[in-house]
């Protein structure tokens, strides 16, 4: 994982081909979050704030461990605490480290109209380039995970970068580095998938979590952040993790068929009026013919 993995694979709002597209063998990176061994210590949150030098924001007290309801433009990594009632009436925590999922097919990038404001590197990291961002907020509409957040002062959108600056130097992201229980792992997508499946099998076979499984949603082409869940059939329990996330249908319609239909209509309208003029010409009022009548 060297700087070569920061070749650009996809570009938002871009006319024409992408230089780095499919020019390398498998080099996808991936973050694995094992929710079953997370203790909710928030070390990853602190490490993220620390490494990315993010300014502090006010926290919100809601009678639980939850520091704030959702991620913010300056808070990219947030553990969501969910009190879950088991079937036998006992309680358990379902804790999920929430951040950008780094989708293989990113809805934010699909929706973005600004050339180069969102890129996907060939290692799979989806990264916002704030200097190209125009602040339209279409990425907020395109994201199925509610991740991009607008800075109201600069009118630019921010989110987790998967620590591209660290990854490009061969280091793991800051959150991974800080995790004391080893519930966070970082490596190639292939390795992390293997590790996750292994862990899910272990949970099924030895810990009685018969529905344990891996969350790597195919609706967005798989993600660069995958979860091991106690109950993979109900991801919604983990702070509203969508079961089958995909780019919203209206965003797909808007960005694909409507573009082409609209382009044909616009060009057709312009050509049509021009042809009409060539065929029928102007309406000129013959000023003389009615002189006596006025």
């Amino acid at each position, binding site marked *: 994982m060297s700087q070569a993995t920061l070749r650009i694979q996809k570009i938002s709002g871009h006319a024409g081909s992408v230089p780095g597209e499919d020019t390398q063998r498998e080099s996808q990176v991936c973050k694995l979050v094992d929710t079953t061994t997370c203790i909710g210590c928030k070390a990853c949150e602190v490490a993220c704030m620390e490494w990315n030098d993010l300014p502090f924001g006010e926290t919100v007290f809601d009678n639980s461990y939850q520091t704030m309801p959702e991620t913010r433009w300056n808070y990219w990594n947030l553990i969501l605490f969910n009190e879950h009632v088991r079937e036998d009436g006992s309680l358990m925590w379902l804790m999920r480290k929430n951040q950008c999922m780094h989708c293989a097919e990113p809805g934010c990038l699909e929706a973005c109209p600004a050339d180069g404001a969102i890129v996907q590197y060939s290692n799979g990291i989806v990264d916002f380039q704030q200097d190209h961002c125009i602040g339209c907020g279409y990425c907020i509409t395109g994201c199925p995970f509610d991740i991009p957040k607008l800075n109201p002062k600069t009118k630019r959108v921010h989110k987790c970068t998967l620590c591209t600056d660290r990854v490009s130097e061969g280091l793991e992201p800051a959150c991974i580095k800080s995790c004391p229980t080893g519930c966070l792992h970082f490596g190639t997508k292939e390795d992390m998938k293997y590790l996750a499946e292994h862990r899910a099998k272990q949970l099924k076979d030895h810990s009685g979590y018969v529905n344990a499984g891996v969350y790597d949603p195919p609706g967005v082409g798989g993600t660069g952040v995958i979860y091991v869940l106690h109950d993979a059939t109900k991801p919604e329990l983990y702070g509203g993790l969508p079961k089958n996330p995909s780019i919203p249908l209206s965003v797909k319609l808007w960005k694909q068929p*409507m573009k082409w239909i609209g382009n044909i209509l616009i060009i057709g309208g312009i050509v049509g009026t021009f042809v009409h003029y060539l065929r029928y010409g102007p309406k000129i009022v013959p000023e003389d013919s009615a002189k006596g009548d006025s």
Partner: protein
Amino acid sequence: MQENRVLRGNRVLRYNFHERVIHWCAGLSYVYLMLTGLAFWSPWLFWIAVVLGGGLASRMLHPLVGLIFTASVIDMYFMWKRDMRITDLDRQWTKTIGAYVRNEEEEQIPELAVRAWQKWAPVDRFNLGQKYLFWVMFWGGIALLLSGLVLWFTEYIPWSFRFLRYISVLVHPIAFLVTLGGFIIHVYMGTAVVRGGFTSVIRGEVSKTWARHHHRLWLERITGQDAARK
């Protein structure tokens, strides 16, 4: 409303000062909105936003100019809603629209009187095409305003109301395409086809001959000829 529109000589006042100002507030703001909108519509047209001061500036000004456009259209509504009502005369005109589109305006039967020189039905202040443009811009403007407000403040829409965003990203471009169709035809008709139309909305005046040709019933109304005829 019943202002005197008959001027000296062979001239009549087609658009008064208020009408001209509002028309150009709407027209120029629409052009800006169209250009910046096209920049966000396609990556191949994003250069328009760069030319107009950059993407960030275009994103900030587009909704503000949109408010000017909306205010102009609302003013137009109260100014012209009576003239823009679609009537039985328009339905007659629709039957002869082919002749209008094909410019079949020559005197086909010279021995007939002057009034029969057109092959299409006589028109009051606005013809049906102009009325359609007005209503397309009016309803399109409302759709653009409502969806535009959602897109303007998209980050304040709560996650549970995200369907508003999903609707708006479809409604806004559809309404734009519909109004753009009207706009293209309007500009084409007003400048290239109907000679004299463009100057009428700049200086406000047309000749009676022009008015009789294009808007006979209106001319008769403002000069009192319709009463005389009855």
